[in-house]
């Protein structure tokens, strides 16, 4: 097998682009939040400035090896997730490993980073971090139920677990999963809100209450790497949901539009809602979204 330079370049460039897009969205979200709250807010490039500043910090402290490696776990998971995602339909450049993984693999690899982060946060000894992790993991059990229901329904509908093939099924506007499988998509999108961690499901990070929870002991290069990871991960999540529910994207502009709209959806839901307590959000997901997801599964089972 000849060595494919384009592919190698793709491996390097994809995370960079993802990171850039992620930071931009984060900047935009701060701006939009501010405008909604009738503030002026920081510039869009604020996130870039923050991360560059953190990278250039000369000192750093840690509480041990696990905290040292936590951000590495996170970035590993983010980039690996991204590499196994078909970012743009049929693009060789962005294809990376997307033929060699499937949805269930993605679900699992996405946890890898969270686990690493949780371990790193745990070692800091800060009770706020531990509380944050406890809440975050508990919430995850909540939203994973409708989430997996939606994904399983879609996998069965598409008769494939591979994301490439799931995108291929959604050829044409009318074949998008949101229209093909409205119930599953509804359950999936409600779970997606939990995945993004904005209000009302932001109790694990609650800045005012927990001092941002898990990341509260991270600074300097550690925080910088974590933020980079977060930007990539945010983008990866958006791409995943676009691929699964909105037919993927055939070019970069389409991708940006779709992901940004999806991002705004989570943001706006958050802006108009107060914060749920942990058990409230878990019970929320175990009620309606789960019921909807179950219905979707029943429908798929009945059809096929």
């Amino acid at each position: 097998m000849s060595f494919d330079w384009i592919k190698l370049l793709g491996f390097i460039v994809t995370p960079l682009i993802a990171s850039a897009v992620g930071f931009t969205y984060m900047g935009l979200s701060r701006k939009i939040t501010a405008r909604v709250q009738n503030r002026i807010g920081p510039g869009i490039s604020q996130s870039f400035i923050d991360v560059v500043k953190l990278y250039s910090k000369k000192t750093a402290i840690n509480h041990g090896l696990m905290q040292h490696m936590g951000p590495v776990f996170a970035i590993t998971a983010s980039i690996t997730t991204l590499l196994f995602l078909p970012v743009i339909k049929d693009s060789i450049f962005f294809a990376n490993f997307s033929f060699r993984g499937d949805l269930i693999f993605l679900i699992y690899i996405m946890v890898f980073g969270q686990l690493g982060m949780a371990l790193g946060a745990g070692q800091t000894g800060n009770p706020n971090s531990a509380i944050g992790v406890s809440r975050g993991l508990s919430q995850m059990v909540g939203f994973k139920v409708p989430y997996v229901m939606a994904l399983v329904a879609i996998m069965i509908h598409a008769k494939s677990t591979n994301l490439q093939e799931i995108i291929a099924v959604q050829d044409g506007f009318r074949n998008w999963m949101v229209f093909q499988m409205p119930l599953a998509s509804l359950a999936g999108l409600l779970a997606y809100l939990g995945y993004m961690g904005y209000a009302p499901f932001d109790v694990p990070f609650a800045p005012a209450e927990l001092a941002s929870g898990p990341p509260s002991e991270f600074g300097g290069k550690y925080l910088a790497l974590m933020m980079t990871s977060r930007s990539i991960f945010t983008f990866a999540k958006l791409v995943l949901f676009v691929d699964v529910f909105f037919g993927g994207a055939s070019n970069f502009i389409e991708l940006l539009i779709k992901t940004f709209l999806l991002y705004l959806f989570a943001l706006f839901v958050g802006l108009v809602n107060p914060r749920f307590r942990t058990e409230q959000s878990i019970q929320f997901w175990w009620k309606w979204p789960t019921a909807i997801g179950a219905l979707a599964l029943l429908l798929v089972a009945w059809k096929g």
Partner: protein
Amino acid sequence: MEQLLNIPAILAIAFAGSILVFVTHLVLPRLRTAVVLLLTLVPAYLVWQLPVDSPMVYFSLGGFDLSWGTNPYSRLFSLLIAGIGVLSTIYSLAFMKNKARLGFFYLAFLATIAAMYGIVFSQDLLSLFFFWEIMTWSSFLLVIYYRFENQQAGIRYFVFSAVGAYALLTAIVYLYSFTGDLSLAATFRVIPQLSTTQLSWITVLFLLGFGVKSALMPMHVWAPDAYRSAPSPFTALFSGVLSKMGVFGMGLVLFKFMGGLEPGHIIREVLAWMGGITALLGTFYAVFQTDAKKLLAYSSIAQLGYIIVGLAIGTPMSVMAAIFLALMHGIFKSMLFMGVGSVFHQTGSLDLNELTGLIRRMPLSFVTVLMGIITVAGVPPLGGFVGKWLLYESLITSNHYFLVIVLFTSSTAAFLYLYRLIFSIFLGQEEREFDHIKEVSWVMWVPMLILAGMTLVTGILPGIFFGPIAEAMQYLGFPQIDWQMSVLFNPWGNQVDMLSVITSIATVFLLGLAFITWKNFRTTRYVTTKDIHTSGEMPTENENLTYAIDFYRPFERAAAPIFKYKVTRMYASFAENAEHLFDLLRHVYTGNAQTYALYVVIFLVILIVFSGWIFGIQI
């Protein structure tokens, strides 16, 4: 050595070994360690060398024809027994050092291993049951090893085992009444001639028997306490291998005996759902445990649930997944119990509310537990992922949509208890009281790290297990199964390439690690866990900053409705009512001679009056 390569020799060495160790302990305690080591290694080596198609051994005992032999299926399990058996024995050498009643301990320990060899090599139902019962009572002796606190656990274990064993026995003698021959071969021949009802009864009884050992809900109530009570080296073997004997038997019953139960049969579906519910509830219970071993015990119950789901579904892929998970569970659960056991050995505590911050004191145990929890969680790239992936994909492709949701929920909730396990013990605040703790001796950490290495190898090259599993499945009656060394694929043709996964993860991880280590290498400081951000106030030395008690209170509140009913309580009330009934019946024996005389007369009168009805002759 050549002459010893047959099953009777191996079993004889193994059983005689257990007695020899006991005698050695009485006579020459100094040689005990050497003898124990020798008598575990020799049978294990012989089992390893045993050819897959070694000739069957036939003999007659008590009027029955018995036979022992090997096949790919038994070889797979015998290697698991040998491997984990040897490692846990080595581990026990240091763990049990200076403990009392070591002769008794090793007698039961080696007898359990020997009995398990016997179970997998049995080619007839009587030897199977015979060894099964020996395994039961020898493991029972180990459960009650730390005598005082464990009586309840031991008796519960024994009674449940007895019920299971008697279900097994009923099935065996019922089958025998049709076959007149106890050998598996004859059984397989006769099975197709039985009616569906008979077959179903036999299957259910067998599954009940094997289900008890693999702690299938609702027959699981013995397991948490029994796992908790046994000494850690044995718990590793108990949960890792002994519970697999139930899986071994279920595999035989579901595929070899009951060829008539095609996939989708009601018994299979019910069993699969029982497995699914076991997985879910086991996980939820594990989340609320504050005792490390009890947490792992519930985790074990849950993991066995996954395996049973795979077996019950019965498609080639799901069975592959189940057996793979069974082997993986043998590896990772033993290593977790060993890791937690090491902590117990050094600190004397298993209380998650009490332990904290041991990572720098016991780094190797930490690595073991870390690898263990990653494997349990099924996160790539370790071996646990392979098993989970195969199982989920097999469920999805065989239309078990809701079951896959149940399992997914369970494995998501598993993160909760896994994180709590590692966080409470190794992470968090480092407390003064644990400053003196040291890592365990190499005798203990070498086996742990060997197992940890296995989880990595099986993640990258799962094919080393797929090969033997495929052969075993062919023995069970499946067609030839395609497998590849490191690519997983499902019936729809989708695949996961573990080599790409490991390439990506390893590259990024190493680059990231290099980056974060090199950058500001000199100006990166290590600070203690007391030096943390607490809104401007410096915590003092005595301030308790450990967050461990009621770690998952919010989740508990959310999940409260699920836990309203407890099976344990149901059994307890059943037992209580039964005893009351027995107590009433006991008063038939009034202790009064007149009453007894009256009984005699009444009995005589009844016999005479109803003689026609009783003896079929009119007076």
